């Protein structure tokens, strides 16, 4: 693999790990492991842990995919520009 591709792949890996960290935190973290602790806080009629488990995590999942789409589009443009110098 040449350097440009290696660089592209490493940036991709960095983006993926960042986003998966958030993915893990909102679902397994807020929705399961710390859910009971978060339940002492409320938003509207929802206990916070319950809200993350049944609503919040899903909204954030959608957001994460679109952030990835956006970041990768930028990365792809940068990478292809480098390859064809015109």
């Amino acid at each position, binding site marked *: *693999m040449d350097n440009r*591709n290696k660089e*592209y*792949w490493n940036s*991709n890996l960095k983006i*993926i790990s960042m*986003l*998966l960290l958030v*993915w893990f935190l909102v*679902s*397994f973290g807020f*929705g*399961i*492991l710390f*859910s*009971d602790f978060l*339940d002492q806080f409320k*938003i*509207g*009629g*929802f*206990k916070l842990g*319950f*809200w993350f*488990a*049944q*609503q919040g*995590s*899903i*909204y954030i*999942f*959608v957001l*994460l*995919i*679109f952030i*990835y*789409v956006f970041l*990768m*589009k930028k*990365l*792809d443009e940068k*990478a*292809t520009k480098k390859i064809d110098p015109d």
Partner: protein
Amino acid sequence: MSVQLLTYIFVGITFALYIGIAIWSKAQSTNDFYVAGKGVHPIANGMATAADWMSAASFLSMAGLIAFLGKDGSVYLMGWTGGYVLLALLLAPYLRKFGKFTVPDFIGERYYSQFARKVAVLCLIFISFTYIAGQMRGVGIVFSRFLEVDIDTGVIVGMAIVFFYAVLGGMKGITYTQVAQYCVLIFAYLVPAIFISILMTGSAIPQVGFGSTLVDSSTFLLDKLDQVTLELGFTEYTKNTKSTIDIFCITAALMFGTAGLPHVIVRFFTVPNVGDARKSAGYALIFIALLYTTAPAVSAFARMNLIDSIQDQNYTTAPKWFKNWEEIGLIAWKDKNNDGAIRYSSGNALEGIKPSFSEGTGIYGERLLENKTDQTNSNEVYIDRDIIVLANPEIAKLPGWVIALVAAGGLAAALSTAAGLLLVISSSISHDLLKKTYMPHITEKQELRYARLAAAAAIGIAGIFGIYPPAFVAQVVAFAFGLAAATFFPALFLGIFYKRLNKEGAITGMLGGLIFTATYIIYFKFINPSLNSEDYWLMSISPEGIGSIGMLVNFVLATTVSTLTKKPPQQVYDMVDMIRKPS
């Protein structure tokens, strides 16, 4: 107009629409048949993926399940949506870049092994048939309750429709019918949810109404629900009853299983390029989230309404839906204290849980039961969880056309998923087994003919499952996800992210994950179901969650064996470099 007539009209119109689309989008080549010519717009593919993914179980059963499980039901909500993040970030773009037709195709080429390909085909067929059996049951329930035809006739009509557009149109026909089916099913799901939300909380958005106060009161819906469930002897609605580790493992098994399901993955082969594959996963999740964030609201509304409308009612004056569902055997009432009133609380009403009815009716007109009464509690009501979504509009006293709409939506959900599954089964047979393994010299035209034949045969088998449903259908759903998580996910993920993984590692990993997971589930579900409780489980992990441990077994075996055996050939390194490159 009667509800039944309205249902016939709605179902008739939607079926005519599906057939129309099938004729318009007939497949001309294997490329059309397997991957819709790779020309599907990402939004259309997102809708098709959503319809493909959201099965009769999502549409008909999930909200009911959550209504009775309360917070424990979150495993389905997070598990069946979180997998799309994994798909979008870890699998879909690379598999699209690989650019072939099926999941076993990738496994066969990446691990340079026909044996690996065959193991993949075997897992795929098992997972897909397990799933189809559930869809057919959904079709049967809708037909028998709303159109008052027998379940068998219902299944045959459903099969005929799927036969028409799957065999004729292949992936292309399926994709565009699924777009239509998504629109039907989401409309059918949201309309009653919005009505009920307005009636109960005054908010037109169920996701908001769910966290609002009840109409004419300052009490929050969820607080009231917690209080009522506690009074009736259940765990509070917003509290977990399962252990944290089990919830963790079930959620993980469902997420990784989702990302490893072949009929979902193959949808990302149909878009024009890699960027579109990522986008398409995002759109798919938006369309899915629309239903999945509404479902828990529907559950809470339904649980509240259900308790309100039957608790302490005399059977003779009980609502009509209660008797309708009793008529087809999905509700049963046993008057334990002989006072003629319905008492609903925690515990099983009947010994053996499921009712078996005998001839004749009791003094209040209720159906008589053969079951012995369970005297350990005072609950008198058996309610099948699958009916909640279908009964909800009736329970909330919504107009007849809403009820008819829900029936059409349930059918759309079941048929779209069944079609997607049939397609992956037929393509893995005609492409992976025939073209790539046993009959490499057939022409494309012959391959297309075999694909159609395989689809027709698969529909026939699925129909038989629908008419004679194997008793273990509900039991084996855990299988489909557990196996997908323990076999496909690690093989695909490592295939892309770990070049050093060789065929020895991949095959040992898949077989190890498969055997471990299958043994655990078969032991607790079939061989020794009496031991199926937390005391006997491995680290208190239920058979539903064991797939996540199976996945770890796969990862460990695959990487260890790979390190100890020789490197994969250079062409595999080149192939992985190719799929990692920017599009």
